[in-house]
């Protein structure tokens, strides 16, 4: 997994609440069997008009947000489907961190599994970042996982919570499965004690 320690990048403001994973990556692009190449389909139905041309009113199509790598959005970001294609698409497009007042559970887990950092800040802090990004051309922030803070060059500083294990996992880019397999003896012991009726009866 890709580690995350510190990232400085341009901010794109997506001022919408309840952005669901169907919007992040529409279902017509879920049929591929690879993990890569989804960036071109990110927010597809918002990014492109019916005739296939980019929709100039969509924020990511605005030239000033080209190359943005930090996405700031409204609450409950990533709700809906469990598709991991959503973080794959965000990451493949170039995002390294998403900042919002809240995230849907499965989406947030999927992000951390891929080294894409979901950062929860308060409503006023998110509002401030949305405002700054739309007011100042080329606005960028630093997301610092070690210090658990988001900051800019003109005095914005916000702390965020993340549990210690997740933080360590991201900082070091650990192999999740490898880590669990270190507990193999515990798993085997647990399996010996399982109730037989918890296993599907063979027919």
């Amino acid at each position, binding site marked *: 997994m890709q580690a995350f320690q510190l990232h400085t990048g341009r901010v794109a403001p997506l001022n*919408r*609440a*309840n952005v*669901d994973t*169907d*919007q992040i990556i*529409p*279902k*017509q692009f*879920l*049929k*591929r*069997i*690879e*993990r890569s190449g989804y960036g071109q389909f990110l927010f597809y*139905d918002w990014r492109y008009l*019916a005739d296939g041309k980019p929709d100039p009113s969509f924020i990511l199509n605005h030239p000033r947000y080209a190359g943005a790598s930090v996405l700031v959005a*409204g*609450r*409950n970001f990533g*709700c*809906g*489907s*469990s*598709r*991991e294609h959503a*973080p794959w698409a965000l990451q493949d497009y170039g995002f390294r961190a998403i900042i919002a007042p*809240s995230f*849907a*559970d*499965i989406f947030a*887990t*999927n992000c951390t*599994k*891929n080294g894409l950092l979901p950062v929860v800040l308060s409503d006023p802090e998110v509002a401030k970042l949305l405002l700054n990004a739309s007011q100042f051309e080329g606005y960028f922030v630093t997301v610092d996982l070690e210090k658990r803070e988001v900051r800019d060059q003109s005095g914005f500083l916000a702390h965020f919570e993340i*549990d*210690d*294990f997740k933080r360590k996992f991201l900082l070091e880019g650990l192999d*999740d*499965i490898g*880590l*669990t*397999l270190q*507990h193999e003896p*515990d*798993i085997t012991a*647990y*399996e010996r004690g*399982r*109730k*037989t*009726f*918890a*296993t*599907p*009866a*063979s*027919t």
Partner: protein
Amino acid sequence: MSRPRTLFEKIWDDHVVCQPAGEPALLYIDLHLVHEVTSPQAFEGLRLAGRRVRRPDLTFATVDHNVPTLAAERSIIRDPIAAQQVNALRRNCRDFGVPLFDIDSAEQGIVHVIGPELGLTRPGITLVCGDSHTSTHGAFGALAFGIGTSEVEHVLATQCLRQQRPKTLQVLVRGSLPNGVTAKDLALGIIGSISTDGATGHVIEYAGEAVRALSMEGRMTLCNMSIEAGARAGMVAPDETTFAYLRGRRFAPKGAAWNEAVACWKTLPSDPGAQFDRVVEIDAAALAPAVTWGTSPGMVISVTERVPDPQRFPSEVERSAALRALEYMGLRPGTPIQEVPVNRVFIGSCTNARLEDLRAAARVAKGHKVSSKVIAMVVPGSHAVKQAAEQEKLDQVFREAGFEWRESGCSMCLGMNPDILQPLERCASTSNRNFEGRQGTRGRTHLVSPAMAAAAAIAGHFVDIRSWEYRD
């Protein structure tokens, strides 16, 4: 005596393999269901790392999301990319020894319909699937939740998941549901009241008289929609209704094991005095048949109401979301929802495509004709549901009324197969998500119960099912 515990706590405690210091618990997974869309990259990961599937006997796969629902198109999937995904699952199941209920098997169906139907889903177990509506299985008093592809790979390799312990939320539904008000309306009512992120970080336990009175099908519909309230999982304590449903199912315990199982399952319900992190009360008697008007399941009103005025919403965020939703849906504030015409009707999905749902819809359809302005389809949730419905001649009722009768699969719930809405088409749907483009790019979805969907197909607009003229 030990401290009183909730249903969730009992299952959780029972499945902790170990709790390494400073790490989340390692939780054992009793059942892993797999489908074609979220698994290919997970199997590929195993291959690359040279790992095997630890417990193929606790893993079951089916194809549901992509499969065509026209009988003639079942054997050869025309969409080459969809075919590739189905073939990848076949190869993966063969290579890793995972049982697969393939497209032509008697067990095929939507993963959340076949788990219970086959007796794979059972009380007290932990169950995961790379699909958010895994919450459905909580209806049996199981801890069931959706996971992403990385976690699918993790479970395939280790049969465990590292989990942060969620909080608990009891949704206490007082009183009983009025006539014409179903589990779907209850689910939408709850989401409308606590909002689409009202249960984030929580596992819901549904309790109260109205929940006890629900059939297993109804409980599945209710738990299915838990994820639309942001919940990690939804559950209902097992009782005689649960046991009666499971007894004799193919993979359910048999003989002495059955008795042992039931004795154990009876100890699962939350103890008197058990504490939840939060409790929400819902008055069942106040509920009415529900129709969503917007692009999120929380944007819901009762069938007697009007499309709301965005200006009336308390916050700027809600106002702008409502404005956007109304524009997308092509609706004007103040329009009585019953005056809104529909041109498509979809009766299907893991929310509402079980036998009881089809019976309810057929009862409405009987002796009526689908409006000439509407294309309506019925897609059974599984092959077994289809067969059972045909045995009761429900297919004839539907066909005579002008509904299309299809093969099982997810179908127009998300339109990964050929069943999709055209831009600007308006659909009354028994599925679970009315997100923008969910059923087809620029398509417009209104979530309703099966009876309400059938009635809308016939009338050509939404109608209050409580005043329906049944012709049976």
